[in-house]
């Protein structure tokens, strides 16, 4: 009996050890594999006037596919419906008819063949990635330039070109001039400075490798891959980049030598957004964050139409469109984002607040639209004076009290970004639920027409300018917002 009991204990210990070992191994493998997987995730980036967006690319039968509706949705008024084996797409005034498992479609009255079959999955239409170059010009009725290898597609004349010229001053400086403002992610490592352009429609120079007759900055290379354009500047010494001319000029120069002093720890490789300025470098948002950094709340929905902006245009539709664009802007900056409604449904205000508080984001952005006035109005909560919520429980109606200074700082930062973009902006407090019920920094953005014409609200370029301003401002104040729960 004693023998068998000790044997059982030994087996139990071995089993426990093996389970622990298995868990540790699984954890190590997960840590090792997940970032590689996410880095290798295939994307296509579509650049169009006023908007840039990224879409996932999936593999089917050894071929790369992409959702067709998603590819054109941000570019105009789009709807799709399934009719038996047919999938009908309406883009602005043109209709296209695709048939499941066929490689022929009828687009704006013309039959078209494309490589690979059209796939219909859960009412979602997928087309072979390589077919976008032939399908989209006809669907959009616009010129399209597509590089399927680097997965970058340009609609219309949106390309940004650049020139690079070495100025042989002391120290030497490499001046890179762009035809439009750029905002690359910059990574420095020994011997090189790498600029990744994820949102800019940058196109290749005449030759992919540029050489300069200088030891400090001998060469630069241009590369495109997985929707990203990358310029790598090789240096004999550590290099730094600075921006000027409203983001149209980047100057690369050797890092000034430190005067002799106490020994310092070696600087680690940096990976900073380009908006970084010395002494105010925002931390990169951790890619493996376990919570949503931002919550976007497209107000109204379902039977709550919000403001009747025109006979056919409701506030709920504009807020949803803005929310989708804002999510793309946040995610293109590596900010994990939750959208409280992604379809035409009515979510009660209390539920919006509860969902947000449960997600513990760092920032909440409510989106509204208006027909009166011009530009953008930013709101923070209007709370009773002298209320304190310092105990373990907070009053529902005044839950925002402790976070109000952070919310106001976020609103001011977004306002400053809009001013930089020459958009009329006004900052106010407002009795607007659920702002007062939130335990995170919270702002509401009410978008009015830019020129007073309500049609502005549906313009992709205007919407994109607004959401890009919000995302830029919030990404740039990550350090300030990071202190919020």
């Amino acid at each position, binding site marked *: 009996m004693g023998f068998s009991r000790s044997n059982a204990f030994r087996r139990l210990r071995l089993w426990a050890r093996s389970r622990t070992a298995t868990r540790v191994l699984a954890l190590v493998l997960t840590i090792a594999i997940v970032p590689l997987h996410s880095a290798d995730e295939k994307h296509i980036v579509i650049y169009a006037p006023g908007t840039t967006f990224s879409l996932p690319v999936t593999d089917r039968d050894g071929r790369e596919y992409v959702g067709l509706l998603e590819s054109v949705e941000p570019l105009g008024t789009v709807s799709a419906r399934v009719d038996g084996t047919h999938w009908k797409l309406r883009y602005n005034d043109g209709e296209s008819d695709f048939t499941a498992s066929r490689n022929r479609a009828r687009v704006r009255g013309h039959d078209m063949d494309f490589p690979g079959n059209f796939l219909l999955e859960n009412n979602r239409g997928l087309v072979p990635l390589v077919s976008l170059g032939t399908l989209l010009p006809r669907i959009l009725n616009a010129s399209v330039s597509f590089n399927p290898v680097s997965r970058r597609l340009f609609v219309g004349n949106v390309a940004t070109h650049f020139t690079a010229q070495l100025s042989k001053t002391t120290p030497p400086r490499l001046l890179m001039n762009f035809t439009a403002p750029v905002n690359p992610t910059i990574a420095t490592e020994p011997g090189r400075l790498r600029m990744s352009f994820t949102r800019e429609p940058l196109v290749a120079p005449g030759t992919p490798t540029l050489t300069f007759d200088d030891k400090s900055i001998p060469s630069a290379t241009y590369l495109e891959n997985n929707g990203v354009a990358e310029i790598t500047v090789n240096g004999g010494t550590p290099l730094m980049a600075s921006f000027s001319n409203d983001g149209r000029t980047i100057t690369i120069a050797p890092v000034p030598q430190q005067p002799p002093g106490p020994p310092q720890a070696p600087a680690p490789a940096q990976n900073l957004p380009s908006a970084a300025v010395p002494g105010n470098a925002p931390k990169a948002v951790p890619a493996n964050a376990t919570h949503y950094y931002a919550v976007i709340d497209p107000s109204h929905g379902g039977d*709550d139409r919000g403001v009747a902006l025109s006979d056919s245009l409701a506030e709920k539709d504009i807020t949803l469109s803005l929310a989708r664009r804002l999510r793309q802007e946040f995610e293109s900056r590596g900010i994990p984002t939750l959208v409280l409604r992604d379809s035409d449904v009515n979510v009660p205000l209390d539920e919006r607040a509860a969902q947000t508080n449960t997600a513990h984001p760092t920032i909440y952005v409510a989106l509204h639209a*208006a027909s009166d006035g011009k530009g953008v109005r930013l709101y923070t909560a209007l709370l009773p004076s002298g209320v304190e919520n310092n105990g373990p429980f907070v009053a529902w109606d005044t839950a925002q009290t402790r976070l109000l200074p952070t919310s106001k700082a976020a609103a001011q930062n977004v306002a400053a970004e809009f001013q930089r973009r020459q958009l009329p902006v006004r900052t*106010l407090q*407002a009795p607007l639920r659920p702002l007062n019920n939130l335990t995170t920094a919270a702002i509401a953005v009410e978008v009015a027409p830019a020129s007073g014409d309500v049609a502005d609200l549906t313009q992709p370029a205007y919407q994109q300018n607004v959401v890009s301003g919000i995302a830029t401002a919030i990404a740039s104040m990550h350090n300030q917002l990071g202190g919020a729960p």
Partner: protein
Amino acid sequence: MIPRHLQIAFGILLLAVLGMGFYVGRIRGRAQQAEPAADSRPVAPPAPGPTERVTLYVANDAGGILRAQAASIPLPYARQQRAEELLRALLDIYLGKDSPHPLAVGSEVRAVYLVDPGLVVIDLNAAFANGHRSGVLEEELTVTSIIQTLAANIPDILRVKFLVEGKERDTLAGHADLSTMYDTIAVSQLVAQMQ
């Protein structure tokens, strides 16, 4: 034999009862005569006090602002009636021909109650809320205009609560919160930003 003093007391009481009966009869007769005459006359307006100079906070949609506007209106002495007269004067501007902040036709304040020291309850009619234009700023201008007009002219108002047709309502027209009480100090600070 009944003592003499009891006979005198009984006599006095009898006279008093007869006198009271006669008096009640006269009063009742007068009341019956007065009633039909009162019904036939229009209800007299509340007795106004002297005309007073007040400050109305008038919303202006053009700039999205509130403007302090001086006005002279007859105000009763009672605080509750003063509040009603102030809001009546404000709504007259909003319902007028060249309104800077138009309200729906038929918009009215049904009643204003001073139910607690510092608390005012404003009961709006359904036309006011159901016909109000939707929008964060439009609704905010209406709410702050009403609250600030009361707070600026009637001392010791600390909180304001809105009802619609005597019932609670979530928002005025989809945006401005009507579910909670407004703190007049916070609203005053906001109004300073909106001027």
